[in-house]
Protein backbone atom coordinates (compact mmCIF):
# COMPACT_ATOMS: atom_id res chain seq x y z
CA UNK A 1 0.00 0.00 0.00
CA UNK A 2 2.70 2.44 1.03
CA UNK A 3 4.85 1.46 -1.93
CA UNK A 4 1.97 1.90 -4.33
CA UNK A 5 1.36 5.37 -2.98
CA UNK A 6 5.01 6.20 -3.39
CA UNK A 7 5.00 4.89 -6.95
CA UNK A 8 1.89 6.92 -7.68
CA UNK A 9 3.55 10.04 -6.38
CA UNK A 10 6.56 9.41 -8.51
CA UNK A 11 4.53 9.16 -11.66
CA UNK A 12 2.60 12.20 -10.78
CA UNK A 13 5.37 14.72 -10.37
CA UNK A 14 5.39 17.23 -13.19
CA UNK A 15 8.74 18.76 -12.34
CA UNK A 16 11.41 16.33 -11.36
CA UNK A 17 14.81 17.65 -10.34
CA UNK A 18 17.32 14.95 -9.60
CA UNK A 19 20.64 15.58 -7.85
CA UNK A 20 21.11 18.84 -9.69
CA UNK A 21 24.42 20.67 -9.41
CA UNK A 22 25.28 24.01 -10.94
CA UNK A 23 28.75 25.50 -10.89
CA UNK A 24 29.85 28.85 -12.32
CA UNK A 25 33.60 28.95 -12.75
CA UNK A 26 34.90 27.92 -9.32
CA UNK A 27 31.72 28.87 -7.51
CA UNK A 28 29.48 25.95 -6.71
CA UNK A 29 26.02 27.47 -6.38
CA UNK A 30 23.78 24.41 -6.19
CA UNK A 31 24.77 20.91 -5.22
CA UNK A 32 22.79 17.73 -5.18
CA UNK A 33 19.33 19.28 -5.22
CA UNK A 34 16.49 16.81 -5.53
CA UNK A 35 12.98 18.16 -5.79
CA UNK A 36 9.73 16.65 -7.02
CA UNK A 37 6.74 18.85 -7.61
CA UNK A 38 3.35 17.21 -8.21
CA UNK A 39 0.96 18.91 -10.64
CA UNK A 40 -1.25 21.57 -9.16
CA UNK A 41 1.03 22.33 -6.25
CA UNK A 42 2.10 25.83 -5.28
CA UNK A 43 5.57 25.71 -3.89
CA UNK A 44 7.21 28.59 -2.11
CA UNK A 45 10.97 28.69 -2.46
CA UNK A 46 12.64 30.54 0.38
CA UNK A 47 16.23 31.27 1.12
CA UNK A 48 18.55 34.11 1.79
CA UNK A 49 19.80 36.34 -0.98
CA UNK A 50 22.39 34.70 -3.21
CA UNK A 51 21.64 31.10 -2.29
CA UNK A 52 20.71 30.11 -5.83
CA UNK A 53 16.93 30.34 -6.01
CA UNK A 54 16.96 32.10 -9.36
CA UNK A 55 19.57 29.69 -10.67
CA UNK A 56 17.41 26.74 -9.63
CA UNK A 57 14.37 28.10 -11.43
CA UNK A 58 16.37 28.94 -14.52
CA UNK A 59 17.73 25.41 -14.59
CA UNK A 60 14.21 24.04 -14.46
CA UNK A 61 13.31 25.79 -17.70
CA UNK A 62 16.67 25.07 -19.27
CA UNK A 63 18.11 28.59 -19.26
CA UNK A 64 21.03 27.48 -17.12
CA UNK A 65 22.71 24.25 -18.13
CA UNK A 66 23.31 22.08 -15.09
CA UNK A 67 26.83 20.88 -14.43
CA UNK A 68 25.41 17.64 -13.18
CA UNK A 69 22.08 15.98 -12.57
CA UNK A 70 18.83 15.69 -14.46
CA UNK A 71 15.71 17.78 -14.86
CA UNK A 72 12.48 16.36 -16.13
CA UNK A 73 9.36 18.21 -17.02
CA UNK A 74 6.34 16.04 -17.65
CA UNK A 75 8.66 12.99 -17.89
CA UNK A 76 10.91 14.56 -20.55
CA UNK A 77 14.53 15.25 -19.81
CA UNK A 78 14.79 18.86 -20.87
CA UNK A 79 18.54 18.81 -21.34
CA UNK A 80 18.24 16.21 -24.05
CA UNK A 81 15.71 18.11 -26.12
CA UNK A 82 16.72 19.88 -29.30
CA UNK A 83 16.43 23.66 -29.37
CA UNK A 84 13.23 23.36 -31.33
CA UNK A 85 11.59 20.88 -28.97
CA UNK A 86 12.72 23.00 -26.07
CA UNK A 87 11.18 26.11 -27.54
CA UNK A 88 7.89 24.27 -28.00
CA UNK A 89 8.16 23.01 -24.44
CA UNK A 90 8.60 26.55 -23.21
CA UNK A 91 5.10 27.40 -24.34
CA UNK A 92 4.02 25.50 -21.29
CA UNK A 93 6.07 27.62 -18.90
CA UNK A 94 5.59 31.12 -17.65
CA UNK A 95 8.58 32.79 -16.07
CA UNK A 96 8.37 36.05 -14.16
CA UNK A 97 11.87 37.50 -13.99
CA UNK A 98 13.11 39.14 -10.84
CA UNK A 99 13.72 42.42 -12.66
CA UNK A 100 10.84 41.98 -15.09
CA UNK A 101 13.19 41.71 -18.15
CA UNK A 102 10.80 43.62 -20.40
CA UNK A 103 12.01 44.26 -23.95
CA UNK A 104 12.82 47.93 -23.80
CA UNK A 105 12.65 48.47 -27.53
CA UNK A 106 8.97 47.54 -27.48
CA UNK A 107 5.91 49.16 -25.94
CA UNK A 108 4.12 47.57 -23.01
CA UNK A 109 1.42 46.32 -25.34
CA UNK A 110 3.94 44.67 -27.65
CA UNK A 111 5.70 43.17 -24.66
CA UNK A 112 2.60 41.53 -23.29
CA UNK A 113 1.53 40.42 -26.76
CA UNK A 114 4.95 38.94 -27.55
CA UNK A 115 4.20 35.32 -26.61
CA UNK A 116 0.90 35.47 -28.50
CA UNK A 117 2.54 36.76 -31.65
CA UNK A 118 5.38 34.31 -31.26
CA UNK A 119 3.22 31.22 -31.09
CA UNK A 120 -0.43 31.77 -31.48
CA UNK A 121 -2.50 32.48 -34.52
CA UNK A 122 -4.64 35.18 -33.05
CA UNK A 123 -6.24 38.10 -34.83
CA UNK A 124 -5.14 41.61 -33.88
CA UNK A 125 -8.47 42.19 -32.17
CA UNK A 126 -8.15 39.08 -30.05
CA UNK A 127 -4.62 40.03 -29.11
CA UNK A 128 -5.67 43.52 -28.07
CA UNK A 129 -8.48 42.19 -25.96
CA UNK A 130 -6.32 39.61 -24.22
CA UNK A 131 -3.58 42.13 -23.54
CA UNK A 132 -5.96 44.64 -22.03
CA UNK A 133 -7.66 42.09 -19.85
CA UNK A 134 -4.34 40.74 -18.55
CA UNK A 135 -3.13 44.23 -17.79
CA UNK A 136 -6.26 45.09 -15.87
CA UNK A 137 -5.92 41.87 -13.89
CA UNK A 138 -2.56 43.05 -12.59
CA UNK A 139 -4.01 46.46 -11.80
CA UNK A 140 -2.64 48.48 -14.69
CA UNK A 141 -4.76 50.99 -16.65
CA UNK A 142 -5.22 50.73 -20.43
CA UNK A 143 -3.17 53.88 -20.90
CA UNK A 144 0.12 52.05 -20.27
CA UNK A 145 -0.21 50.05 -23.48
CA UNK A 146 1.61 52.58 -25.62
CA UNK A 147 4.30 53.44 -23.10
CA UNK A 148 7.82 52.09 -23.14
CA UNK A 149 9.09 50.07 -20.13
CA UNK A 150 11.48 52.90 -19.21
CA UNK A 151 8.49 55.17 -18.55
CA UNK A 152 7.01 52.89 -15.87
CA UNK A 153 7.89 52.52 -12.22
CA UNK A 154 9.69 49.40 -11.03
CA UNK A 155 6.55 47.91 -9.50
CA UNK A 156 4.55 48.57 -12.65
CA UNK A 157 7.20 46.88 -14.77
CA UNK A 158 7.05 43.89 -12.49
CA UNK A 159 3.32 43.62 -13.01
CA UNK A 160 3.73 43.91 -16.77
CA UNK A 161 6.17 40.99 -16.56
CA UNK A 162 3.52 39.06 -14.68
CA UNK A 163 0.88 39.84 -17.32
CA UNK A 164 3.28 38.77 -20.07
CA UNK A 165 4.05 35.45 -18.40
CA UNK A 166 0.41 34.62 -17.74
CA UNK A 167 -0.99 35.47 -21.15
CA UNK A 168 -0.43 32.04 -22.68
CA UNK A 169 -2.09 30.25 -19.75
CA UNK A 170 1.02 28.20 -18.95
CA UNK A 171 0.96 24.95 -17.01
CA UNK A 172 3.95 25.78 -14.86
CA UNK A 173 4.43 29.31 -13.60
CA UNK A 174 7.58 30.48 -11.92
CA UNK A 175 7.38 33.70 -10.01
CA UNK A 176 10.76 35.16 -9.09
CA UNK A 177 9.99 37.46 -6.17
CA UNK A 178 6.67 38.70 -7.57
CA UNK A 179 5.91 41.02 -4.66
CA UNK A 180 9.32 42.49 -3.92
CA UNK A 181 9.22 46.24 -4.43
CA UNK A 182 5.43 46.50 -4.42
CA UNK A 183 3.36 48.33 -1.83
CA UNK A 184 1.44 46.12 0.64
CA UNK A 185 -1.85 46.53 -1.17
CA UNK A 186 -0.41 45.72 -4.56
CA UNK A 187 1.44 42.76 -3.03
CA UNK A 188 -1.86 41.40 -1.87
CA UNK A 189 -3.37 41.99 -5.31
CA UNK A 190 -0.57 39.82 -6.70
CA UNK A 191 -1.15 37.17 -4.02
CA UNK A 192 -4.80 37.10 -4.98
CA UNK A 193 -3.84 36.90 -8.63
CA UNK A 194 -1.64 33.87 -7.92
CA UNK A 195 -4.53 32.21 -6.09
CA UNK A 196 -7.02 33.14 -8.79
CA UNK A 197 -4.77 31.82 -11.58
CA UNK A 198 -4.57 28.55 -9.74
CA UNK A 199 -8.28 28.23 -9.13
CA UNK A 200 -9.06 28.95 -12.77
CA UNK A 201 -6.58 26.50 -14.30
CA UNK A 202 -4.88 23.52 -12.72
CA UNK A 203 -1.44 25.17 -12.78
CA UNK A 204 1.70 24.27 -10.91
CA UNK A 205 3.55 27.23 -9.46
CA UNK A 206 6.90 27.93 -7.91
CA UNK A 207 7.04 31.20 -6.01
CA UNK A 208 10.36 32.58 -4.89
CA UNK A 209 9.70 35.01 -2.12
CA UNK A 210 11.19 36.68 0.91
CA UNK A 211 7.76 37.71 2.02
CA UNK A 212 6.36 35.36 4.69
CA UNK A 213 2.95 36.87 4.15
CA UNK A 214 2.95 35.67 0.54
CA UNK A 215 4.27 32.28 1.55
CA UNK A 216 1.52 31.86 4.16
CA UNK A 217 -1.18 32.94 1.79
CA UNK A 218 -0.38 31.05 -1.41
CA UNK A 219 1.88 28.12 -0.65
CA UNK A 220 0.91 24.47 -0.21
CA UNK A 221 4.49 23.58 0.44
CA UNK A 222 7.63 25.43 1.40
CA UNK A 223 11.18 24.59 0.45
CA UNK A 224 14.08 26.45 1.94
CA UNK A 225 17.58 26.56 0.52
CA UNK A 226 20.69 27.85 2.19
CA UNK A 227 23.93 28.97 0.55
CA UNK A 228 26.59 26.32 0.08
CA UNK A 229 29.02 28.17 2.34
CA UNK A 230 26.72 27.90 5.34
CA UNK A 231 26.16 24.17 5.14
CA UNK A 232 27.45 21.82 7.76
CA UNK A 233 29.49 19.05 6.15
CA UNK A 234 27.34 16.30 4.66
CA UNK A 235 24.17 18.30 4.96
CA UNK A 236 21.77 18.77 2.04
CA UNK A 237 21.26 22.22 0.66
CA UNK A 238 17.51 21.95 1.09
CA UNK A 239 17.22 22.43 4.83
CA UNK A 240 13.47 22.51 5.00
CA UNK A 241 10.70 20.88 2.98
CA UNK A 242 7.17 20.85 4.32
CA UNK A 243 3.99 22.81 4.85
CA UNK A 244 3.82 26.41 6.05
CA UNK A 245 2.65 25.23 9.46
CA UNK A 246 5.59 22.94 9.83
CA UNK A 247 7.84 25.81 8.78
CA UNK A 248 6.64 27.95 11.62
CA UNK A 249 7.16 25.15 14.11
CA UNK A 250 10.50 24.12 12.70
CA UNK A 251 13.20 23.98 15.35
CA UNK A 252 16.15 24.66 13.03
CA UNK A 253 17.79 27.88 14.10
CA UNK A 254 18.45 29.06 10.56
CA UNK A 255 14.85 28.47 9.53
CA UNK A 256 13.56 30.30 12.59
CA UNK A 257 15.79 33.27 11.87
CA UNK A 258 14.51 33.48 8.34
CA UNK A 259 10.86 33.20 9.34
CA UNK A 260 11.17 35.80 12.06
CA UNK A 261 13.53 38.02 10.09
CA UNK A 262 16.30 38.22 12.68
CA UNK A 263 19.94 38.62 11.85
CA UNK A 264 21.03 36.84 15.06
CA UNK A 265 24.62 35.71 14.88
CA UNK A 266 24.51 35.88 11.06
CA UNK A 267 25.95 39.38 11.23
CA UNK A 268 28.93 38.12 13.16
CA UNK A 269 29.35 35.24 10.72
CA UNK A 270 29.38 37.62 7.79
CA UNK A 271 32.01 39.78 9.46
CA UNK A 272 34.07 36.67 10.17
CA UNK A 273 33.76 35.70 6.47
CA UNK A 274 35.06 39.13 5.51
CA UNK A 275 38.05 38.70 7.76
CA UNK A 276 38.79 35.28 6.34
CA UNK A 277 39.05 36.63 2.82
Amino acid at each position, binding site marked *: MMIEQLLDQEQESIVDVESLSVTFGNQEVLKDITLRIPPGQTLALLGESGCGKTVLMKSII*GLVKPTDGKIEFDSENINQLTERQLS*RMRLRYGFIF*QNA*ALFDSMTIGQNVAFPLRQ*HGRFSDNQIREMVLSRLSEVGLPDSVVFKKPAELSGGMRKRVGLARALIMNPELIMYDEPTTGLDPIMSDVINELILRTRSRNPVTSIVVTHDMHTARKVADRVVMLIPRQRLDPGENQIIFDGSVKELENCRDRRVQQFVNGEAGERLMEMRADDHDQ
Partner: protein
Amino acid sequence: MYPWGAPQYRRARRLCTDFMSTVASNNPKPQASTRITGWFAEWVSDWGELVISSCVALGDFCLFVLSTFRWMFSRIPRGETLWPNFYQVGVSSLPVVALTGTFIGVVLALQSSSQLGHYGLTNQLGGVINLTLVRELGPVLAATMLAGRVGSAMAAELGTMRVTEQIDALSAMGADPIHYLVVPRFLACLLFIPTLTIMADFMGVAGGYFYSNIWLSIDQHYYWTNSAKFVNNFDLFTGILKSLFFGSAISLISCYQGFNCKAGAEGVGKAATSSFVFAFIVILILDLSLGLTLKAVYESWYPGGTY
Protein backbone atom coordinates in the same frame (compact mmCIF):
# COMPACT_ATOMS: atom_id res chain seq x y z
CA MET B 1 30.25 32.59 -19.09
CA TYR B 2 30.10 30.86 -22.43
CA PRO B 3 26.41 30.10 -22.77
CA TRP B 4 26.93 28.57 -26.21
CA GLY B 5 29.85 26.43 -25.14
CA ALA B 6 29.50 22.78 -25.86
CA PRO B 7 29.96 20.57 -22.82
CA GLN B 8 33.10 19.03 -24.28
CA TYR B 9 34.81 22.44 -24.38
CA ARG B 10 33.81 23.13 -20.83
CA ARG B 11 35.00 19.74 -19.74
CA ALA B 12 38.31 20.24 -21.49
CA ARG B 13 38.75 23.58 -19.86
CA ARG B 14 37.87 22.24 -16.45
CA LEU B 15 40.44 19.46 -16.87
CA CYS B 16 43.10 21.96 -17.84
CA THR B 17 42.32 24.39 -15.04
CA ASP B 18 42.30 21.50 -12.58
CA PHE B 19 45.68 20.45 -13.85
CA MET B 20 47.02 23.95 -13.57
CA SER B 21 45.70 24.47 -10.09
CA THR B 22 47.40 21.23 -9.11
CA VAL B 23 50.61 22.58 -10.56
CA ALA B 24 50.08 25.82 -8.70
CA SER B 25 49.19 24.16 -5.41
CA ASN B 26 52.34 22.06 -5.59
CA ASN B 27 54.20 25.33 -5.38
CA PRO B 28 52.09 27.23 -2.91
CA LYS B 29 54.68 29.69 -1.57
CA PRO B 30 58.00 29.52 -3.33
CA GLN B 31 60.95 29.07 -1.00
CA ALA B 32 64.18 30.82 -1.82
CA SER B 33 65.63 27.73 -3.48
CA THR B 34 62.54 26.99 -5.53
CA ARG B 35 61.74 30.55 -6.44
CA ILE B 36 62.78 30.05 -10.02
CA THR B 37 60.53 27.03 -10.47
CA GLY B 38 57.66 28.78 -8.73
CA TRP B 39 58.04 31.80 -10.91
CA PHE B 40 58.37 29.62 -13.95
CA ALA B 41 55.32 27.52 -13.10
CA GLU B 42 53.29 30.66 -12.65
CA TRP B 43 54.47 32.04 -15.94
CA VAL B 44 53.67 28.79 -17.74
CA SER B 45 50.29 28.51 -16.12
CA ASP B 46 49.43 32.12 -17.00
CA TRP B 47 50.27 31.52 -20.62
CA GLY B 48 48.53 28.16 -20.58
CA GLU B 49 45.42 29.76 -19.22
CA LEU B 50 45.53 32.44 -21.88
CA VAL B 51 45.94 29.89 -24.65
CA ILE B 52 43.19 27.69 -23.31
CA SER B 53 40.72 30.49 -22.81
CA SER B 54 41.42 31.77 -26.32
CA CYS B 55 40.83 28.33 -27.78
CA VAL B 56 37.62 27.98 -25.80
CA ALA B 57 36.43 31.39 -26.95
CA LEU B 58 37.29 30.58 -30.55
CA GLY B 59 35.46 27.26 -30.41
CA ASP B 60 32.55 28.97 -28.78
CA PHE B 61 32.51 31.61 -31.49
CA CYS B 62 32.51 28.91 -34.19
CA LEU B 63 29.52 27.22 -32.58
CA PHE B 64 27.79 30.58 -32.45
CA VAL B 65 28.43 31.13 -36.16
CA LEU B 66 27.25 27.61 -36.98
CA SER B 67 24.01 28.04 -35.14
CA THR B 68 23.48 31.41 -36.83
CA PHE B 69 23.80 29.73 -40.21
CA ARG B 70 21.54 26.89 -39.17
CA TRP B 71 18.82 29.28 -38.13
CA MET B 72 19.27 31.44 -41.18
CA PHE B 73 18.55 28.59 -43.53
CA SER B 74 15.84 26.95 -41.48
CA ARG B 75 13.41 29.77 -40.87
CA ILE B 76 13.02 33.25 -42.33
CA PRO B 77 13.08 35.96 -39.65
CA ARG B 78 9.98 38.03 -39.18
CA GLY B 79 9.75 41.34 -40.96
CA GLU B 80 9.54 43.40 -37.82
CA THR B 81 12.96 42.18 -36.74
CA LEU B 82 14.47 42.73 -40.18
CA TRP B 83 13.37 46.22 -41.22
CA PRO B 84 14.88 48.23 -38.36
CA ASN B 85 18.24 46.52 -38.91
CA PHE B 86 18.12 47.00 -42.67
CA TYR B 87 17.38 50.63 -42.06
CA GLN B 88 20.22 51.04 -39.57
CA VAL B 89 22.79 49.48 -41.86
CA GLY B 90 21.54 50.39 -45.30
CA VAL B 91 20.14 53.88 -44.85
CA SER B 92 21.44 55.51 -41.68
CA SER B 93 25.04 54.61 -42.42
CA LEU B 94 25.06 56.02 -45.96
CA PRO B 95 25.76 59.70 -45.17
CA VAL B 96 28.75 59.04 -42.95
CA VAL B 97 30.22 56.56 -45.42
CA ALA B 98 29.68 59.05 -48.25
CA LEU B 99 31.38 61.81 -46.31
CA THR B 100 34.43 59.79 -45.31
CA GLY B 101 34.61 58.35 -48.84
CA THR B 102 34.83 61.84 -50.34
CA PHE B 103 37.59 62.87 -47.99
CA ILE B 104 39.58 59.74 -48.62
CA GLY B 105 39.32 60.35 -52.38
CA VAL B 106 40.57 63.91 -51.99
CA VAL B 107 43.40 62.98 -49.64
CA LEU B 108 44.47 60.16 -51.90
CA ALA B 109 44.58 62.54 -54.87
CA LEU B 110 46.54 65.04 -52.82
CA GLN B 111 49.19 62.53 -51.76
CA SER B 112 49.56 60.59 -55.01
CA SER B 113 49.68 63.69 -57.19
CA SER B 114 52.76 65.04 -55.49
CA GLN B 115 54.45 61.64 -55.53
CA LEU B 116 53.62 60.89 -59.15
CA GLY B 117 54.59 64.47 -60.04
CA HIS B 118 58.20 63.65 -59.13
CA TYR B 119 58.29 61.08 -61.89
CA GLY B 120 56.26 63.16 -64.32
CA LEU B 121 53.42 60.65 -64.26
CA THR B 122 50.64 63.01 -63.21
CA ASN B 123 48.52 61.80 -66.12
CA GLN B 124 48.31 58.37 -64.55
CA LEU B 125 46.78 59.82 -61.41
CA GLY B 126 43.23 58.67 -62.21
CA GLY B 127 44.31 55.07 -62.53
CA VAL B 128 46.18 55.01 -59.25
CA ILE B 129 43.48 56.71 -57.21
CA ASN B 130 40.57 54.77 -58.59
CA LEU B 131 42.24 51.40 -58.47
CA THR B 132 43.22 51.89 -54.83
CA LEU B 133 39.75 53.05 -53.99
CA VAL B 134 37.83 50.30 -55.71
CA ARG B 135 40.06 47.47 -54.58
CA GLU B 136 41.12 48.46 -51.10
CA LEU B 137 40.06 51.68 -49.52
CA GLY B 138 36.37 51.65 -50.49
CA PRO B 139 35.60 48.27 -48.92
CA VAL B 140 37.86 48.75 -45.90
CA LEU B 141 36.55 52.23 -45.22
CA ALA B 142 32.91 51.19 -45.51
CA ALA B 143 33.59 48.22 -43.24
CA THR B 144 35.38 50.35 -40.66
CA MET B 145 32.56 52.83 -40.55
CA LEU B 146 30.06 50.00 -40.26
CA ALA B 147 32.02 48.38 -37.44
CA GLY B 148 32.22 51.68 -35.58
CA ARG B 149 28.73 52.93 -36.21
CA VAL B 150 26.63 49.79 -36.28
CA GLY B 151 28.84 47.03 -34.87
CA SER B 152 29.53 48.58 -31.51
CA ALA B 153 25.90 49.68 -31.22
CA MET B 154 24.85 46.08 -31.81
CA ALA B 155 27.26 44.82 -29.18
CA ALA B 156 26.03 47.40 -26.68
CA GLU B 157 22.37 46.71 -27.41
CA LEU B 158 22.66 42.94 -27.19
CA GLY B 159 24.94 43.30 -24.19
CA THR B 160 22.34 45.35 -22.37
CA MET B 161 19.75 42.75 -23.29
CA ARG B 162 21.96 40.03 -21.87
CA VAL B 163 22.65 41.95 -18.66
CA THR B 164 19.00 42.82 -18.06
CA GLU B 165 17.96 39.20 -18.79
CA GLN B 166 16.02 40.16 -21.91
CA ILE B 167 17.85 37.46 -23.85
CA ASP B 168 16.83 34.93 -21.20
CA ALA B 169 13.30 36.24 -21.45
CA LEU B 170 13.32 35.64 -25.20
CA SER B 171 14.32 32.01 -24.70
CA ALA B 172 11.88 31.63 -21.85
CA MET B 173 9.09 32.62 -24.21
CA GLY B 174 10.19 30.13 -26.81
CA ALA B 175 11.88 32.56 -29.21
CA ASP B 176 15.41 31.57 -30.11
CA PRO B 177 17.70 34.55 -29.37
CA ILE B 178 20.00 33.71 -32.27
CA HIS B 179 17.12 33.51 -34.70
CA TYR B 180 15.45 36.57 -33.28
CA LEU B 181 18.44 38.85 -32.72
CA VAL B 182 21.49 37.65 -34.59
CA VAL B 183 20.13 36.46 -37.93
CA PRO B 184 18.45 39.80 -38.81
CA ARG B 185 21.61 41.71 -37.93
CA PHE B 186 23.75 39.33 -39.91
CA LEU B 187 21.50 39.58 -42.94
CA ALA B 188 21.39 43.37 -42.71
CA CYS B 189 25.17 43.64 -42.71
CA LEU B 190 25.62 41.03 -45.42
CA LEU B 191 23.03 42.48 -47.80
CA PHE B 192 23.77 46.15 -47.32
CA ILE B 193 27.52 46.39 -46.98
CA PRO B 194 27.91 46.21 -50.80
CA THR B 195 25.73 49.32 -51.05
CA LEU B 196 27.94 51.09 -48.55
CA THR B 197 31.05 49.97 -50.40
CA ILE B 198 29.72 51.23 -53.71
CA MET B 199 28.81 54.48 -52.04
CA ALA B 200 32.33 54.87 -50.62
CA ASP B 201 33.83 53.97 -54.00
CA PHE B 202 31.64 56.43 -55.84
CA MET B 203 32.19 59.34 -53.50
CA GLY B 204 35.92 58.61 -53.36
CA VAL B 205 36.12 58.58 -57.14
CA ALA B 206 34.15 61.82 -57.27
CA GLY B 207 36.32 63.45 -54.59
CA GLY B 208 39.54 62.42 -56.34
CA TYR B 209 38.22 63.66 -59.66
CA PHE B 210 37.24 67.04 -58.33
CA TYR B 211 40.55 67.59 -56.62
CA SER B 212 42.59 66.45 -59.63
CA ASN B 213 40.60 68.34 -62.24
CA ILE B 214 39.53 71.48 -60.53
CA TRP B 215 42.43 72.02 -58.17
CA LEU B 216 45.33 70.48 -60.08
CA SER B 217 43.69 70.91 -63.52
CA ILE B 218 44.88 67.57 -64.83
CA ASP B 219 43.48 66.80 -68.25
CA GLN B 220 40.10 65.11 -67.92
CA HIS B 221 40.70 62.92 -70.93
CA TYR B 222 43.89 61.34 -69.56
CA TYR B 223 42.38 61.03 -66.10
CA TRP B 224 39.47 58.91 -67.27
CA THR B 225 41.30 56.94 -69.97
CA ASN B 226 43.92 55.87 -67.50
CA SER B 227 41.27 55.04 -64.92
CA ALA B 228 39.46 52.86 -67.43
CA LYS B 229 42.72 51.20 -68.40
CA PHE B 230 43.67 50.39 -64.81
CA VAL B 231 40.33 49.49 -63.26
CA ASN B 232 38.41 46.54 -64.69
CA ASN B 233 35.39 44.56 -63.63
CA PHE B 234 37.47 42.12 -61.67
CA ASP B 235 38.63 44.94 -59.41
CA LEU B 236 35.08 46.01 -58.71
CA PHE B 237 34.17 42.39 -58.02
CA THR B 238 37.17 42.07 -55.70
CA GLY B 239 36.01 45.04 -53.65
CA ILE B 240 32.44 43.83 -53.33
CA LEU B 241 33.44 40.27 -52.51
CA LYS B 242 35.74 41.51 -49.77
CA SER B 243 33.00 43.68 -48.36
CA LEU B 244 30.69 40.67 -48.05
CA PHE B 245 33.27 38.97 -45.87
CA PHE B 246 33.79 42.14 -43.83
CA GLY B 247 30.06 42.58 -43.29
CA SER B 248 29.61 39.02 -42.05
CA ALA B 249 32.59 39.31 -39.75
CA ILE B 250 31.42 42.60 -38.27
CA SER B 251 27.91 41.40 -37.48
CA LEU B 252 28.99 38.04 -36.09
CA ILE B 253 31.75 39.48 -33.91
CA SER B 254 29.56 42.26 -32.56
CA CYS B 255 26.66 39.96 -31.79
CA TYR B 256 28.95 37.44 -30.15
CA GLN B 257 30.49 40.13 -27.96
CA GLY B 258 27.02 41.31 -26.99
CA PHE B 259 25.81 37.81 -26.19
CA ASN B 260 28.81 37.15 -23.96
CA CYS B 261 28.67 40.48 -22.20
CA LYS B 262 29.77 40.59 -18.57
CA ALA B 263 27.51 42.05 -15.94
CA GLY B 264 26.94 45.74 -15.45
CA ALA B 265 27.55 48.97 -17.31
CA GLU B 266 31.24 48.18 -17.42
CA GLY B 267 30.57 44.89 -19.19
CA VAL B 268 28.42 46.59 -21.80
CA GLY B 269 31.06 49.24 -22.44
CA LYS B 270 33.70 46.58 -22.78
CA ALA B 271 31.58 44.57 -25.18
CA ALA B 272 31.11 47.63 -27.39
CA THR B 273 34.79 48.55 -27.44
CA SER B 274 36.11 45.06 -27.92
CA SER B 275 33.62 44.38 -30.70
CA PHE B 276 35.09 47.30 -32.63
CA VAL B 277 38.69 46.37 -31.91
CA PHE B 278 38.19 42.73 -32.83
CA ALA B 279 36.15 43.58 -35.90
CA PHE B 280 38.79 46.01 -37.10
CA ILE B 281 41.62 43.54 -36.64
CA VAL B 282 39.64 40.84 -38.40
CA ILE B 283 38.82 43.23 -41.26
CA LEU B 284 42.52 43.89 -41.80
CA ILE B 285 43.45 40.22 -41.59
CA LEU B 286 40.67 39.28 -44.01
CA ASP B 287 41.72 42.09 -46.31
CA LEU B 288 45.25 40.80 -46.52
CA SER B 289 44.33 37.15 -46.96
CA LEU B 290 41.58 37.86 -49.48
CA GLY B 291 43.96 40.18 -51.35
CA LEU B 292 46.52 37.41 -51.65
CA THR B 293 43.91 34.82 -52.65
CA LEU B 294 42.29 37.04 -55.24
CA LYS B 295 45.66 37.90 -56.71
CA ALA B 296 46.36 34.21 -57.16
CA VAL B 297 42.92 33.67 -58.66
CA TYR B 298 43.37 36.57 -61.06
CA GLU B 299 46.74 35.32 -62.20
CA SER B 300 45.42 31.84 -62.88
CA TRP B 301 42.40 33.19 -64.77
CA TYR B 302 44.32 35.69 -66.86
CA PRO B 303 47.83 34.30 -67.24
CA GLY B 304 50.18 37.07 -68.20
CA GLY B 305 47.85 39.79 -66.96
CA THR B 306 49.17 42.08 -64.26
CA TYR B 307 47.03 42.24 -61.14
